[in-house]
């Protein structure tokens, strides 16, 4: 298993290099540049600015400058944020994004699994129908609408919770963003959980366990739960990366200081440094998450063998 993990880490390096290269090339192929805006710069100024960011050098040389910078741990300058380097911006925003994403992840996973298991046990009874309703709401309403609705309801009209902002760590300010972010995720998990739980409850070994006279709670906990978790776990890795990269809308609506916004805005602004930096960050994150999922998978399912 350690060997396996080691091999996975090593194989991640070429993946990183490919991701950086592809991203670098695509960015340069896209029309427009970081300094084309509503108010284009006069040619002399543009020349000065391009020279400042090495953008006047041949492309391969820029690529080499960037890559050697990354190897030294320097993600270069941002072209839309002059007072912070890309590394500084990511370092400031990352803790918040991770905290928001992880909180939503834990909340969504717990709520989704519990709801799915309950719905499976009470299949086609009212708890099941209630769950279907909640799932539908979570899946159908897009997050920007959900965010705006909750903000209006709880922030503007009821005034129970702040409508946004991040004055420093504060649980009330976290409730609505986490709810918006985790709802669709919880909905998907609960559906997976419900389906696989129903399937597991119908298997022969569960029937055998029941026939032996074991109590239904014991059957659920000892025999049904673990195998039912397998499809859920395989979803958790992509699910978590979805939560971590998908915080853009929530950050926008609630005005939160995460890095989700950089991912989209930097691409629109052609902020080459910041797009590459964010991409590298997410690539690393997703590689790590996938590795963890694979390891958990091995632990859960004895049928999966690693050499």
């Amino acid at each position, binding site marked *: 298993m350690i060997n396996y993990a080691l091999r996975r880490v090593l194989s991640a390096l070429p993946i990183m290099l490919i991701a950086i290269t592809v991203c670098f090339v695509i960015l340069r192929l*896209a*029309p*427009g*540049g*970081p300094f*084309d*805006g*509503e*108010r*284009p*710069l*006069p*040619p*002399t*100024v543009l*020349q*000065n*600015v391009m*020279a*400042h960011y090495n953008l006047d050098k041949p492309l391969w040389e820029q690529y080499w400058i960037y890559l050697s910078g990354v190897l030294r741990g320097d993600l270069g300058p941002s072209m*839309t*944020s*002059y*007072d*912070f380097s890309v590394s500084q*911006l990511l370092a*400031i*925003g990352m803790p918040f994004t991770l905290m928001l994403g992880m909180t939503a992840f834990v909340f969504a996973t717990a709520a989704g699994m519990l709801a799915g298991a309950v719905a499976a046990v009470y299949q086609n009874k009212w708890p099941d129908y209630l769950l279907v309703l909640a799932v539908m709401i979570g899946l159908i309403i897009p997050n920007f609408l959900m*965010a*705006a609705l909750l*903000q*209006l309801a709880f*922030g*503007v009209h009821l*005034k129970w919770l*702040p*409508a*946004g*902002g*991040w004055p420093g760590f504060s649980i009330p300010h976290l409730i609505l963003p986490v709810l918006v972010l985790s709802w669709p995720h919880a909905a998907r998990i609960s559906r997976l959980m419900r389906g696989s739980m129903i399937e597991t409850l119908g298997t022969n070994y569960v029937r055998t366990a029941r026939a032996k006279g074991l109590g239904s709670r014991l059957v659920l906990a000892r025999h049904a739960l673990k195998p039912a978790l397998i499809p859920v776990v395989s979803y958790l890795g992509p699910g978590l990366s979805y939560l971590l990269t998908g915080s853009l809308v929530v*950050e*926008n*609506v*609630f*005005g*939160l*200081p*995460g890095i989700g*916004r950089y991912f989209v*805005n930097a691409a*629109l*602004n*052609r902020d080459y440094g910041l797009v590459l930096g964010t991409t590298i960050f997410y690539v690393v994150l997703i590689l790590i998450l996938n590795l963890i999922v694979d390891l958990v998978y091995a632990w859960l399912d004895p049928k999966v063998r690693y050499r």
Partner: protein
Amino acid sequence: MQFRTVIKGGLLAGLMALAMSGSALAVTLHSFNGGEPASLDPHRVSGDWENRIVGDYIEGLMTEDAHAEPIPGQASSYTVSDDGLVYTFTIRDDAVWSDGTPVTAQDFDFAFKRLFDPETAADYAYLQYPIKNAEAANAGDVPLDEVGIRVIDDKTIEFTLEAPAPYFLDALTHYTAYPVPRHVVEQHGSEWIRPENIVGNGAYQIVEWIPNSHIRAVKSETYYDAENVQIDEVVYYSMDDISAALARYRAGEFDILTDFPADQYQLLQDQYPGQAHVAPFLGLYYYVVNHNKEELADPNVRQALSMSINREIIGPDILGTGELPAYGWVPPGTANYDFDEYRPDWADLEYGERVAQAISLMEEAGYSASNRLNLQLKYNTNENHRRIAVAIAAMWEPLYVDVELFNSEVAVHYDALQNNDFDGVGRAGWLMDYNDAINMLELLRSDIGYNYGRYNNAEYDELLRESALITDMDARAEVLRQAEEIAMGETAGIPIYYYVSKNVVSPAISGYEDNAKDIHRTRWLSKSE
């Protein structure tokens, strides 16, 4: 373990109580400020959202009053030579940086040279090109020492201009003319702007910057007018989603919104009467006509296109915020330009009559139902631009014009405009950098990059050149007006509407004056709890 939790909880509660008592004493202004500032360095910024912050913590020789008119700031007085070429400023004795160091003429000299230094790569350096040799120095052609700025003594500085520029005092209120604290910049380099190093000479002092969230500034006790500054603390929030910002205003979290979604204007008027401020703003929304496209080289075709646009419905009906219909190139309220806004004769015709005349112009040019004009209409992706483009395409339909709508994101769009790569008409907008007609009219000068449509009229160019040499303000205005009439007479571009500024101001705020530059320095505001 439990004991520790109790201690932690107690500490937290204590801190919170402290924080709350602190905020109860101080008057804090919560301002929704729009985008995330690219920088707080006056030589690196380019947006009005940055201007609002930078102009609160640094002040130039001239500054804006509550109506955004230029008044002396760090200068106590100034003189202008008779030929309008030499400006001499005396700096206030009580002008000091927030670390106590006096503000000197050398700080200004240092700042201007830094602005023009090609190494600084300042986006907006060109705004100070009226200063002698500034443009050449910025291009690296002459040494920085030859720029027309002379330090006479610690508190006296003299500017020599290339040509008389009546808007120079106004240009000095701009952030490109702000001083920077030489002693701090020399010590920390580009890091001088970080909250732990930053020093300013304005009414406020930056204390915290959380990217993508907010910037916090507190009242500076060293500011010469500190006793009249009412608001103790300002928080400038950066958020891209203006609908969400409005929700937070309604939840009482913001005192000022520097923008609001046009489709919420009615709601604001109904539920928050008097709080939405819509005021004329120095800027023009226009369509660039590509003069290099053969069909559009005919001035009659251009005029027909312009005539058939029903501008009166765009502000109230399409945008919903009552933007003013534009027939001329220079917005109303422009300084040193005391004319009614330009209106061609046909502007006063009834709309149906205008369309009929436009159709006959097109027919004279050889177009008919079977021989139609194909035009591309390019705009940058935005809901309002799209709605206007769709409406105008429909208005052009009766003129035998087939419009292909083509949208792209902003960087791509302006790249295409700059390279004259559009087969017909392109959307553009211009917000004036300083309050003078020349700033608008230069957009149509043949040798300037912003002249996307490549309008080229030697007489027009000559009039602009001539205007730069005239010291008599009225005579200068006449010449500029003549230029505007020439360009609009042959439809050099198609003006559509004059911008308006859109702000929402809580009734708790007083001292907020609507003005054409949409600049509202916090030092003039006060807030009642």
